[in-house]
């Protein structure tokens, strides 16, 4: 299986930098972004499997960014990273299509586990889509 492509979005640059290094060491293709706009630009540029998105950011916040990501790239799975221990912001994110949420600060292992789940879910989706396409082609052929 190819390396999972992860986009890490957080306004805390040192956090992004360290996480990037640590995740790269664990066989993930990680890119960093420091704002919602950066993240959307990165997504437009290249394909990603999972976005790890901080909820609280200056400018365009996590929920807003999430809405935008889901509109433009519906297949990309988003894991919310929340500083608030409130169920509410997490539930808001989930309602908007986020895969799951994690509470900051989180263990790297937790994050990796979640990322793997998300990737699995995404590839599952993609497989289904591929199968559907294949069926479509088969059906067409049968015509």
């Amino acid at each position: 299986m190819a390396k999972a492509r992860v986009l890490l979005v957080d306004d805390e640059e040192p956090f992004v930098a360290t996480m990037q290094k640590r995740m790269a060491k664990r066989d993930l293709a990680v890119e960093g972004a420091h704002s919602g706009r950066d993240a959307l630009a990165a997504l437009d540029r290249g394909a990603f499997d999972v976005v790890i998105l901080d909820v609280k950011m200056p400018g365009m916040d996590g929920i807003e960014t999430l809405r935008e990501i889901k509109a433009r790239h519906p297949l990309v799975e988003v894991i919310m990273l929340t500083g608030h221990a409130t169920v509410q912001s997490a539930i808001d994110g989930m309602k908007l299509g986020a895969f799951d949420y994690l509470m900051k600060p989180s263990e790297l292992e937790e994050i990796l586990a979640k990322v793997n789940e998300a990737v699995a879910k995404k590839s599952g989706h993609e497989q289904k889509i591929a199968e559907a396409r294949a069926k479509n082609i088969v059906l067409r052929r049968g015509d």
Partner: protein
Amino acid sequence: MAVDRQRYYQGIKQTIFFLIILVSFTPLLGMMAVMGYEFHTAYREKTLAYLEQLVEKQAQGIDSFLEEKLADIQVLAAVLSYRELSSDAGLQKVLQTLQEQHTGVFVDLGLVDSDGLQEAYAGSFKLGRANYAQAPWFIQASRQPAFISDVFLGLRGLPHFIVAVRGRSENRTWLLRSTIDFVAFNLLVEKIRMGSTGRAFIINREGEFQTQALDDLSDAVPLILNTMWPGSTKSGSPDVEGSRNLVAMRDGQRPRQAAVVRTFTGSDPARGEKVIYVAALLKGGDWALVYQQNEADAFANLYRARNISILVLLLGGVAILAMAILLSRRMVRRISSGDQEKEMMNEKVIEAGKLASLGELAAGIAHEINNPVAIMVEESGWIGDLLEESEFADSENVREIKRALSQIRTQGKRCKQITHKLLSFARKTDPVEKHLDVNALITEVIELSEQHARFSNVKFNLDLAPGLPAVLASPSEMQQVVLNLINNAIDAIDQKEGGVVGLTTRIEGNEVVVDISDTGSGIPEANLKRVFDPFFTTKPVGKGTGLGLSIVYGIIKKLNGRITVQSAVGVGTTFHLHLPATGGERKVPENGAGTETGL
């Protein structure tokens, strides 16, 4: 401060007191004054009018008595011949007839010639041929056709008065005179008696009593004379007026001009009392019938009414005074207790506000700390990752660095726990409220705590009342509450000695009450007040955040419940949770807290 307040309440009390007094007394006194005055005036007028009427009537009665007597004699003088009158025997016959007609009024009869010599006499005094030439009555009577004298002692030395009529026959002028019984006349006046001091008398122009002399009244005589005969002096000539009246009378025109009745007051110097006089002129203005009565006696009813109303006023005043004192005192007590309550409420509000702002502060700090802590933990993790590289041999130092890193990670986790607790303490909303079965929830939490309890040598003692009404609350929050309290209870118990944690549920009115007791060390009095304060903990550093009970407090408050604590050092502590039961709903829905797990 306390003195100020005291003065403030004193001021209110006085204001209320004076207001009550003012409002109650003003109309009362006003009414008393007006009614008293009106009643006094009306009653006085009525009484005086009655007295005046009485006196007038009596005066008329006496007047007609005198006129009758005079008329009788006039008839005799006109009808009988001189011959008949000039003999004692003849007169005796006439007198007898008169006395039969008028019981004892006419005492005697006499015929006096123009020189004042009595020619004939009939009566009991045996006066014989008395000479009246010098007697004042004779001098006056000889000038008038008819005459009634004042009362005088006369030749007999007894008070009497004379009725004389001038007669003319056979060229000679004579006077037929009769003595009127003084006692009989006196009775007429004396029977006018009212009250204890009311009495009447007749006085003439000269101030001489015409009836039984009343010595104690001699002081009042000048006043009566001045009032009844103003301007007339003692030296005046009363006879002129008298004769005019009597002339008119003889002509058949009875002098019935509106009787002169005067009412006046004087004082009785002997007793210092006010005296009312009601006087009417009679005998053509020669005499006055005077009725006199002490004012206190005449208006006895009025004064009694006045005394009663004054008594009522006094009693009412005392009652009002007492009421005012009582009422003002009670009002002030109410006000002060209200103020105290308000103050306590204020304190509570301030307390709540403090707690809330503290919560917000804590949340802010927690949030801000989260990020740097996360970075620190990640950096240490990165160091750990790098240390895995083969270029770092497994030396003593590397091992030490790894230990340090793991310590950093541990402390990072601790930071995370603290910030999470802070945040959950500060969080305001939890939308998922459900109908909870408190018993089921407790049973479930007990299961979670079983391990912890066994480790601490603690036994659970459950006494759960069946059929509890449901409580509307967030399951996770309620679990947190119960779990926190149970953990605290277990922590309070010494591990070596062990102990019991008791959980009881019961219904108290509209509330479900949960008691969580332990047989632990107890909370000292000084700490008891602060147990719900955030960051207050007695646990060793690193063991407690001091947030557990304040979170519990916050959750229970949010449910409109109450939490109280009782503790005795060395005996144990009991927390009481009072949770409002959902109105009337005794049934617990099937998907109650029993199925909810996880915090």
